[in-house]
């Protein structure tokens, strides 16, 4: 046999940037999504408020009329999860919590929601009733009212059962500007509980992977948790819910917005063994898996303990933990210290890792 390689082609072909058609990776919440937003949306519809890059918009901040006693926050979110019902939740609960949480992440108390439905021809009305009931229960829990709505029907095959888009309005009563751009060196990073539960629960529910996992989605409205945190500290700098792209991608966004480095302690990051096990089997990293009932808080060091204790009293913050610190920007946005003393970088999710889950 010819025993060594001919080296005839030690080269690789030029890449495919996928700028001419949408691929699934554009919906991952990672770099492709960012690029799409930057290249298609921002140049056309960008403005000072949209450019801030948070999950919700702070509006009417400067309105000087007598009615604007509060700052207003507005956010919108579309939900396309498959399957429609999964352990721990369904698309209805998701559509309420997703927007309630986005509004809450600027420190606002959400008050009103609107809901737009795209229904596929043939959808079982009983299923729709169940999903709308679930929206009602979630809205009650969050203490928000759904005050406007819209329904459209598309032909069979043109939608995956149903899609729901919700928009939420909330008011801020907090002295400081909570934003992804407000993290400061010295701040402490807190996460409100275990990571990756939602993504793994949805994946297991699809049954495509031939595994079942006793894990429920963490979908929850976090507005009460946020209000309880705000009540104990005036030094909460950043709040964000690590949905698509998971903890790693969300922290990269924050570090980028705030121009800082975030250093995490790997062993302090709470992950359920069942989620860790499923991720091992599937080759996923739980730090990139979506959550729907978790938040990241970046807070002043002196208040971290109070805030952590306040969080742990709320049922949605029982497993809250301090997982890292903010530093002056050094070599990378997000670094992870392993238990063994080595360090690695956590990058932004680049393409599609999972079928759509939120």
């Amino acid at each position, binding site marked *: 046999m010819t025993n060594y*390689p001919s080296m005839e082609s030690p080269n690789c072909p*030029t890449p495919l940037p996928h700028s001419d*058609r949408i691929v699934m990776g554009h919906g991952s919440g990672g770099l492709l999504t960012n690029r799409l937003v930057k290249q298609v949306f921002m140049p056309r519809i960008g403005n000072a408020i949209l450019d801030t890059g948070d999950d919700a918009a702070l509006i009417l901040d400067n309105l000087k009329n007598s009615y604007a006693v509060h700052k207003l926050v507005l956010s919108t979110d579309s939900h396309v999860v498959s399957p429609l019902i999964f352990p721990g939740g369904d698309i209805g609960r998701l559509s309420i919590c997703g927007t309630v949480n986005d509004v809450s992440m600027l420190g606002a108390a959400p008050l009103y929601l609107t809901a737009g439905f795209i229904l596929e021809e043939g959808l079982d009305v009983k299923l729709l009733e169940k999903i709308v009931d679930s929206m009602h229960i979630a809205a009650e829990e969050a203490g928000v009212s759904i005050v406007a709505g819209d329904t459209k029907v598309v032909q069979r095959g043109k939608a995956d059962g149903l899609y729901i888009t919700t928009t939420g309005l909330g008011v801020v009563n907090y002295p400081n500007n909570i934003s992804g751009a407000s993290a400061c060196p010295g701040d402490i990073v807190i996460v409100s509980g275990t990571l990756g539960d939602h993504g793994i629960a949805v994946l297991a529910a699809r049954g495509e992977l031939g595994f079942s996992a006793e894990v429920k989605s963490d979908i929850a409205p976090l507005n009460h948790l946020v209000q309880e945190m705000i009540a104990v500290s005036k030094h909460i700098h950043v709040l964000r819910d690590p949905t698509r792209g998971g903890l790693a991608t969300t922290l990269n966004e924050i570090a980028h917005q705030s121009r800082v480095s975030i250093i995490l302690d790997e062993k302090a990051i709470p992950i359920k063994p069942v989620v860790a096990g499923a991720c091992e089997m599937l080759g996923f990293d739980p730090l990139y898996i979506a959550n729907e009932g978790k938040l990241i808080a970046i807070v002043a060091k002196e208040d971290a303990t109070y805030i952590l204790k306040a969080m742990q009293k709320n049922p949605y913050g029982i497993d809250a933990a301090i997982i890292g610190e903010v530093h002056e920007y050094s070599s990378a946005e997000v670094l992870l210290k392993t238990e*063994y003393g080595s360090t690695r970088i956590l990058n932004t999710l680049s*393409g599609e890792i999972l079928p759509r889950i939120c």
Partner: protein
Amino acid sequence: MKYLSEFREANLIRGVLEQIHQISTQHWVIMEICGGQTHSIMRYGLDQLLPQNIELVHGPGCPVCVTSIELIDKAIAIAALPGVIFTSYGDMLRVPGSHNDLYSIRANGGDIRVIYSPLDAVRIARENPDKQIVFFAIGFETTVPANITSVLLAKSLGLSNYSILVSQVRVPPAMHAILNSPNNRVQGFLAAGHVCSVMGYWEYLPIAEKYHIPIVVTGFEPLDILNGIRMVVEQLENRTYKVENAYSRLVTEQGNIAAQSTIENMLEECDRKWRGIGLISLSGWRLKDEFAEFDAERRFSVESITPEESPVCIAGLILQGIKKPHECPAFASMCTPEHPLGATMVSSEGACSAYYKYGRKAMAI
């Protein structure tokens, strides 16, 4: 045992590291064959913890990376045909062919489905009798049994609409190729544990003997890898050249006899081109003639495709352990996971992707 935390236990890991520090007296170059091992090394930063005189180089064991551009082009051509449902492991969708990738075909209307088991492809074939279902059967020895079992299943179900595009490659010929290369620097191997769980390690005995090189069958957890390194270093320091097994919880010398006999019944050895490396004689498998009807290359007329590689990246040198990913001028600048120049940056097992993902761009280690 949960097999999740035990092999990552910090105290045990520190213990093995200490032993490696104690026994190593000179510079040694060790290649981990498998891309899964490369990723563990990067994920846990194991190379940062080793003595500076132990150099790890990353082997060709990433099936996505080494799948030849001809086969990618054939996959793209088949996937674009009307009436075809093309099924593949997810990574392959992003690997660029000469002009295109499978993602583009899907975005343009091709029916391409990501599956996690070849048996899902057979299920799709049963559910769609009026369509041709093709599965992209890539991989090393590890994936062979499951991939070809799908053919047996399709045959027993009498399915005439199922075929596989075979890109199966074997580790031992690649080891010969590396060791015979005039540029070879490798002095010891961590053999790929999962490959050996199927094939055993009897095939490696003559290699260790012929080239005077220690080979240690090694797993994928931090403790497995460090233990494998410790055993290779020990042999190098003692001038012994044996095959040892550091993954005995899964691997025996004989391997999985049933899987090997299925392989023998259904496949024959053939020459295969490795992307970025070139032709390695008898380094792959193809379906025997009696299974020709399940061979997608023969079912669809795609034999005459001529690929075009454009000279940009150094994946070939990386796959042979001659260069490291960060030594490529395009690494992390022109070439990133979302804008890959080569398959080594695409695959989750690729060395460039491991370097990028775990932060070797900025740390420049």
